C-alpha cells in the first residue's frame, strides 16, 4: 500500500517536471517569435502572442496547484521538497519571461511603421538570440539538475548585459543623428530592457536550481553578513574592534559551506 503511494507520488513529481519543461519550451519559443513580430512589423503575430499568453498563465497555475497538492498531502522531504519549491519558483520566473515577450509585442504595436537603423535591428536580434539561449540553458540545467551550468548562467548573462549597453548607446546615437524620434527611442529603450530582464529571469532560474541541488541560495551570503553584524552589535564594544578587520573574510567563509 505504502509502496503504491510512493509510485503515485513519483509519477506526480514527474508530471510536474514535464509540465515545467513544457512551460519552459513555450517561454523559449515565444522569445524569437516576439522578436519576429517586432522586426517584421507583424501586428497579427504580435496580437497572437499577446492572446496566447493566457495559456501560459493557465499552465503555470496548474503547475502551482499540483505542487501545493503534493506539499500538503505527501509532506515531501529533502531533495523532493526542494524540487517542488524550485518548480514553483521556476514557474513564476518562466511566466514572467513570457510576460516580458508580451511587453515586447505591445511595444512593437506602439512603434509600428517606425523605421529604425540596421544596427539597432541587429542588436535586437542579438539580444533576442542571447536571451533565448540563456533560457534554454536554464531549462537544461533544470532537467539535468546541473549545478555548474546553473551557476554559469550568471556569467553567460554578462554577454546580454553588454549587448544591452551597446544597444542603449545605439538608440541614443540614432536619436541624436535625427533618425529616430523621441517617442520611438523611448519605446525601443524599454524593449531593450525587456530582453535584458529575460536574461535576469534565466539567472534567477539558475540560482533556484543551485538551491534545488545543493540547498544553497545566494541570499545566504547576505543573511550570514547580517547575522554577523547583529552578533557584533549585541556583544560588547570590545568585540567591535577586531570585527572590522575580519568582516571582509567572514561572509566569504560562509559562502563555502
Amino acid at each position, binding site marked *: 500500500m505504502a509502496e503504491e503511494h510512493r509510485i503515485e507520488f513519483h509519477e506526480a513529481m514527474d508530471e510536474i517536471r514535464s509540465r515545467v519543461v*513544457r512551460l519552459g*519550451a513555450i517561454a523559449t519559443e515565444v522569445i524569437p517569435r516576439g522578436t519576429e513580430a517586432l522586426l517584421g512589423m507583424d501586428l497579427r503575430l504580435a496580437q497572437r502572442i499577446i492572446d496566447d499568453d493566457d495559456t501560459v498563465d493557465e499552465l503555470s497555475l496548474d503547475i502551482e496547484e499540483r505542487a501545493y497538492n503534493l506539499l500538503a498531502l505527501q509532506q515531501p522531504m529533502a531533495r523532493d521538497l526542494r524540487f517542488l519549491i524550485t518548480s514553483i519558483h521556476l514557474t513564476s520566473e518562466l511566466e514572467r519571461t513570457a510576460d516580458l515577450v508580451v511587453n515586447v509585442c505591445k511595444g512593437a504595436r506602439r512603434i509600428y511603421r517606425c523605421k529604425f*537603423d540596421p*544596427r539597432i535591428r*541587429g542588436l535586437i536580434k542579438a539580444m533576442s538570440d542571447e536571451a533565448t539561449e540563456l533560457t534554454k540553458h536554464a531549462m537544461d540545467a533544470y532537467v539535468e539538475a546541473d549545478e555548474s551550468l546553473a551557476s554559469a548562467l550568471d556569467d553567460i548573462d554578462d554577454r546580454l548585459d553588454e549587448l544591452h549597453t551597446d544597444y542603449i548607446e545605439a538608440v541614443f546615437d540614432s536619436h541624436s543623428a535625427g533618425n529616430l524620434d523621441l517617442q520611438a527611442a523611448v519605446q525601443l529603450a524599454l524593449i531593450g530592457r525587456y530582453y535584458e530582464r529575460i536574461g535576469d529571469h534565466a539567472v534567477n532560474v539558475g540560482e533556484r536550481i543551485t538551491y534545488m541541488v545543493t540547498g544553497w541560495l545566494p541570499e545566504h551570503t547576505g543573511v550570514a553578513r547580517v547575522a554577523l553584524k547583529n552578533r557584533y552589535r549585541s556583544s560588547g564594544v570590545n568585540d567591535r574592534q577586531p570585527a572590522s578587520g575580519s568582516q571582509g573574510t567572514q561572509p566569504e567563509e560562509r559562502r563555502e559551506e
Partner: protein
Amino acid sequence: MSPGGTIALLVAIAAVGVAVIALVLLTRDRRRLTRLVSTSAPGELPGGRPLDALETLLAGATREAQRREGEVAELAEALDSIPLGIAVCDQHAQIRFRNTVAGGFESARHGEALVEAAVTDLLARAVQGLSGRREVQLYGPPLRSFVVRARPLMVDDDEVRGGIAVIEDVSEQRRVDSVRRDFVANISHELKTPIGALGLLADTIREEDDPEVVTRLAERMILEADRVSHTVDDLMELSRIEFADESDFEALDIGSLVCEAVARIREAADQRAVKVLVHAGEAMAVRGDRRQLVSALFNLLDNAVKFSESGTTVEINTTGTPEVVQIAVIDAGPGIESKEQERIFERFYRVDQGRSRAQGGTGLGLAIVRHVASNHRGRIDVVSSEGEGSTFVLRLPRLVASGGDTGAER
C-alpha cells in the same frame, strides 16, 4: 553387524521411503493433470496420452508466442525506419508505443516539448473518439513546422481501444511552398513593372509637343527597356548555368578570375565612390567554366558595391587550404537579417523591395552565384548581422597542380 553397517542400512531404507512417497505424489499429480486436460479440451488433442498432448500444445503455444514476438519486433523496426513519428496509446491515453522519431520528442525539453504536448493533448481527445490535427511552428532557429494528427483506434467499429498520433516534419515543404509562391509573384512583378512604365511613357509621349519633355521621357523609356532586357539577360544566364555541365571545364587561375571580375565592377564602384581592395593570397587554381565563375564573382562584387555607402571599402580576399579555395567578398553595408540569410539566394528574393530595386538589381545575382557554386561542387555562404556589414564566401574545390597542368592558363 557393525554399527557402520546399521547406519548404512537405515539410510538406504529412508532413501527408498522418500522415493516411494515422491513417486506416489507424482503419479497422483499426473493423474490429476491427465484428468484436467481430457476434460478441458477433449476433442482437440492429438492422439497419444493426454499429458504428451499437453506438452505438444504448450510447445506450440510457446513457438507461436515467440513468432508473434518476432513479428512485433519486426513491425516496430519497420516503423522505426519511416521518417514520421508514431505514438500509440491505450484507452486511458497512456502511450504504449513510440517509434524512434516519436521517442525523440518524448525526452525533448525545448521547442520539441511543444510537439510532445500536442501529441498528448490530441491522444487524450482521440481516446474520446475525436480525431484531431494541429500544426506546431517552432521559431528555432532554424524555423521548423510539424503537423501532428491523431485519431482513435477502433475495434468492431464502436469500441475505442486507444489512439494513434502521427508526427510529420513539414519544414521543408513549407519552405518550398513559400519559395514557389514568391517566385511566381516576383517574376510577374519584375517584368510587369517596367513594361507598365513603358506603356505609360509611350502614352504620354504621344500627347506631348514639347521636344524637351519628349527627350526626357524617351530617356526614361530607354532606362525601363534596359531594365527589362537586364532581367531577361540574367534569367537566360541563370537557365544556361542551371543546365550547364562539366564538359567545357578547364583549369583556371583564381587571380585572373578575380582580376576580370574586379575590372568589370570598377566603373560602377568609382561612380559610387566605393573602393575595391584585392588581397590576393598564393596562386591557386580551380577547374571550371571561366564565364560562369567570373559572372559569380562579378555578382558578389556588384551586390557588395550596391549596398555600400560611398566612401567605404569592399574587400575581396582569396585564401586556401590544400583542398579548398576560398574567395571572400566583404562589405561594410547595412548587413542582412539572419532570417533573410536563408532566402537571399532564391531567384528574385529581395530583402527590402523598395530599396534594392532603386539600386537597379534584377534580383537574380545571388541565385546565379549559388548555381555556379553548385555546378562547381562548391558552396556559397554568408556571414552577416544587421548594421555590421556582410561577408560572402565562395568555396571551390582546389585544383592541385600536377606536372605541366598548372593552374595558370592565361
